[in-house]
């Protein structure tokens, strides 16, 4: 070839503008997601603006709208210089631009907001869009891969190798992440999901970012890379070990331990490979050069943070450390460090570098410098904040405190993240301005001389571009596909066949299947995992570890990689459908400090008027862990056996009550909250009855079976004592005003006993101990009047109308006098202490 080679400047500008737009929109999605963590009412009530859908669009937008476009812009500039050939076709370039931006990005975003998506991490765009993106990969290979491969194989620079390997590998791995988990369930699919989760970052983002570093550093410094040998070893090692990392997202899971160990080793080698790559890059650059040229400064910072995030990643993949910080905000800090600090800084450096050479493109160096500092400061603060939050969460999860405690203490960190997100957004805006403002370059883009590449000695076929491409792309893909997917799947299949209990109830009903689709659509798996890991902390809190056989109907698996709310793998042993419905209508009704999004559009205006979606979702939640049986639930019960409630401080107890109990029982304990009233049975009116210490203590420690009252045994003993003392103080059974008395007390008592013996003993027992012959058939158990003395109004209401959700039916034929009489009698059975009105609460 000879003569000048055309660079497609219009396509560079088009993808550059699309990248800026994608970055700003994706950052806004992220900011909204962050805000909802501490202000869950923000943008609430609209299905298309719910947390899960915005979260999907945030990460997919960063991947495709921002980084994808930035990398494509870079490719249009770099390819002619790396290949000494033009891209295949400008027309093909515009077709790719439209397919990528209009169909894949805008189409994907819109469909996700409309509720059409798939719950696969880094593959949330629906399958139709995934097909479009796969076609786009084919176009990318045509547009950029073919010219590179046509160049003399020996002359391809390391950036070209990274691009070739990355493009080919990603085009193969992408369908694996999107398709395979739909056909291989649960644990078997998780291995393939892990492969794509890691490859999206490791073999799409990383090769492009490293291609940028290897391109921009020598271009600015005008010196060669320190060591070609290090470049090549780094390249091959990266493509060998990166794909084998995937299963480190599922450590201590039901996947074969040998696969987990392999991922651990691969992760360690990945960190060492990055040390080699970064050593090579840093030895190729002088700090003064990086400081003088802002685009190079972005790239240099990217290289430094690549080292930090990779060593951090290797550490996180060590199982003994992973058991501590996995699922926490530590990992979110890590992913932001990777996607902003490494990938975005590289992409920004590349865009700014090529923008200065592109005719018609404006460039404002001052805005770029502002962008650098805003992003650097904002990122450091965000990572520090999330790392600290992760450590706090990890510490709490290893204890026995209720889960909501970790949500409560995370709130300041989440607020800080939002504020810090504004700084980052400012940095992104400044970056956009740096490419949109300032004087436009008028000169033509520097032409590439097709003959100018250095003559290199011919090498063996092993060193050819084809070998590199097919080795790094195809062969290593097959190795990872077999090692991460096929081998574990074969072992799991055999294990599932041997270990599935014969009568295991695995099949989902049609309603449960619909509920599963809703769970997937709303992104529930991004805050609630569905895997109890084989760690002490998990087993103590959530029950038996998730076994592979339990997951054999999960198409696709929704194990999750983050816990904001608790794990739901054993949910069927934890919560009742009525609680789930109230919680879905407004999570604050049942858990005042919850940050979960509300789903009011699934209801007809009230929690006790659920629509079909809500019923289906509750049905699905009730199926989780059902196959493993009730024995698989948690056995956490660590409260002291001796109540010692006399020592409790009611004032302190009120604080505990407001945080944990007021959602259902109301702020004053009179069960007047909408959430408590919508439960079935409704929350108990604690002020309308005197209760014995033993009853309160038992309810707090064990919950009340058959109701939504859970066990609070995980609370610290002091909190339990205090809240018990406060609850006891609330109970005020009152007395019967003389004016309302229908007969002398002894007459009422005698008449009441007759009514009681005739109608009540079958359930409540002869002595009022709640142990009648029918009692064992009912859950919740009939009231024990030895421990509870209802007020006259409460008893009148219950006897006349019954209690929904219990065996206590209405007795409308009893006259008011009979009701008063039987109330007098059952009140006389009470053997607990009498309590006064609520104590004056210390503020």
């Amino acid at each position, binding site marked *: 070839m000879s003569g000048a080679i055309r660079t497609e400047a219009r396509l560079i500008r088009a993808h550059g503008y699309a990248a800026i737009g994608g970055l700003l929109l994706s950052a806004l999605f992220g900011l909204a997601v962050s805000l909802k963590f501490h202000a869950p009412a923000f943008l609430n009530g609209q299905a298309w603006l719910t947390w899960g859908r915005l979260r999907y669009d945030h990460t997919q937008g960063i991947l495709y709208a921002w980084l994808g476009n930035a990398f494509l812009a870079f490719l249009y500039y770099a390819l002619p210089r790396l290949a000494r050939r033009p891209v295949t076709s400008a027309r093909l370039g515009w077709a790719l631009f439209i397919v990528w931006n209009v169909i894949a990005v805008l189409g994907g975003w819109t469909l996700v907001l409309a509720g059409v998506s798939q719950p696969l991490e880094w593959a949330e765009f629906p399958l139709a869009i995934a097909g479009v993106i796969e076609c786009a990969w084919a176009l990318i290979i045509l547009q950029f891969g073919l010219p590179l491969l046509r160049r003399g194989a020996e002359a391809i620079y390391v950036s070209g190798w990274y691009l070739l390997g990355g493009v080919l590998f990603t085009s193969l791995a992408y369908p694996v992440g999107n398709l395979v988990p739909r056909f291989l369930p649960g*644990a078997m699919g998780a291995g393939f999901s892990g492969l794509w989760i890691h490859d999206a970052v490791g073999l799409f983002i990383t090769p492009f970012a490293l291609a940028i570093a290897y391109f921009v550093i020598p271009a600015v410094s005008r010196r060669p890379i320190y060591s070609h*040998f290090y470049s090549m070893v780094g390249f091959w090692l990266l493509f060998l070990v990166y794909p084998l990392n995937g299963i480190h997202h599922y450590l*201590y899971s039901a996947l*074969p331990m040998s696969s987990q160990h392999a991922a651990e080793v691969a992760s360690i080698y990945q960190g060492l490979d990055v040390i080699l790559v970064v050593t090579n890059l840093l030895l190729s650059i002088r700090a003064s050069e990086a400081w003088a040229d802002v685009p190079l400064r972005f790239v240099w910072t990217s290289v430094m943070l690549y080292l930090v995030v990779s060593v951090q990643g290797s550490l996180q993949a060590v199982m003994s450390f992973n058991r501590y910080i996995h699922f926490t905000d530590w990992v979110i800090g890590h992913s932001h460090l990777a996607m902003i600090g490494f990938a975005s800084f590289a992409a920004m450096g590349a865009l700014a570098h090529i923008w200065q050479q592109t005719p018609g493109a404006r460039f404002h160096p001052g805005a770029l410098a502002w962008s650098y500092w805003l992003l650097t400061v904002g990122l450091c603060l965000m990572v520090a904040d999330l790392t600290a939050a992760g450590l706090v969460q990890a510490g709490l999860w290893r204890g026995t405190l209720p889960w909501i405690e970790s949500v409560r203490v995370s709130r300041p960190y989440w607020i800080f993240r939002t504020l810090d997100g504004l700084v980052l957004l400012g940095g992104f805006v400044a970056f956009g301005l740096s490419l949109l403002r300032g004087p436009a370059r008028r000169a033509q883009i520097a032409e590439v001389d097709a003959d100018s590449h250095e003559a290199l000695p011919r090498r063996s076929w092993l060193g050819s571009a084809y070998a590199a491409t097919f080795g790094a792309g195809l062969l290593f893909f097959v190795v990872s596909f077999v090692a991460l997917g096929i081998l574990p799947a074969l072992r799991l299949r055999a294990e599932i066949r041997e270990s599935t209990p014969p009568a295991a109830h695995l099949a989902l009903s049609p309603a449960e299947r619909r509920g599963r689709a809703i769970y997937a659509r709303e992104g529930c798996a991004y805050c609630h995992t569905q895997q109890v890991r084989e760690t002490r902390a998990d087993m103590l809190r959530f029950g038996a570890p998730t*076994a592979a056989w339990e997951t054999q109907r999960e198409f696709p698996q929704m194990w999750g990689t983050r816990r904001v709310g608790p794990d739901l793998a054993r949910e069927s042993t934890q919560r009742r459908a009525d609680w789930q419905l109230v919680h879905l209508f407004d999570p604050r009704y049942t858990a005042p400090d919850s940050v979960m999004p509300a789903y009011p559009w699934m209801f007809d205006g009230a929690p006790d008027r659920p629509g079909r979606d809500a019923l289906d979702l509750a049905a699905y939640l009730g199926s989780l862990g059902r196959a493993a049986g009730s024995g698989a639930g948690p056995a956490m019960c660590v409260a002291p056996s001796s109540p010692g409630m006399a020592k409790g401080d009611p004032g302190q107890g009120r604080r505990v009550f407001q945080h944990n109990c007021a959602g259902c029982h109301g702020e004053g304990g009179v069960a007047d909250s909408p959430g408590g009233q919508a439960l079935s049975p409704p929350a108990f009116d604690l002020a309308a009855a005197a209760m014995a210490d033993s009853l309160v203590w038992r309810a707090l420690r064990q919950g009340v079976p058959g109701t939504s009252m859970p066990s609070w045994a995980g609370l610290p003993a002091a909190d339990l004592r205090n809240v018990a003392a406060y609850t006891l103080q609330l109970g005020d059974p009152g007395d019967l005003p003389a004016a309302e008395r229908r007969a002398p007390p002894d007459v009422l008592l005698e008449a009441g006993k007759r009514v009681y013996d005739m109608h009540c003993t079958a359930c409540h027992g002869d002595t009022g101990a709640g142990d009648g012959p029918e009692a064992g058939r009912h859950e919740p158990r009939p009231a024990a009047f030895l421990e509870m003395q209802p007020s006259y109004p409460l008893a009148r209401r219950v006897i006349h109308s019954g209690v929904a959700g219990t065996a206590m039916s209405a007795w409308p034929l009893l006259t008011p006098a009979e009701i008063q009489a039987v109330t007098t009698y059952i009140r006389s059975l009470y053997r607990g202490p009498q309590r006064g009105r609520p104590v004056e609460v210390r503020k």
Partner: protein
Amino acid sequence: MGAGPRAASWPQRLFVLLLLLLGMLISVTVIRVIDPAAEPRAEAGRTPGK
């Protein structure tokens, strides 16, 4: 582009070799010593597929 010297010096080769050996050392220590001490139950084989 500036690919850099194509021939590797022996200190460069040694550095790569040391990194590979270091990876082996860390891996063996982690898998044989540190992980089993952290969660002995999982490592003892209760995890399916072990």
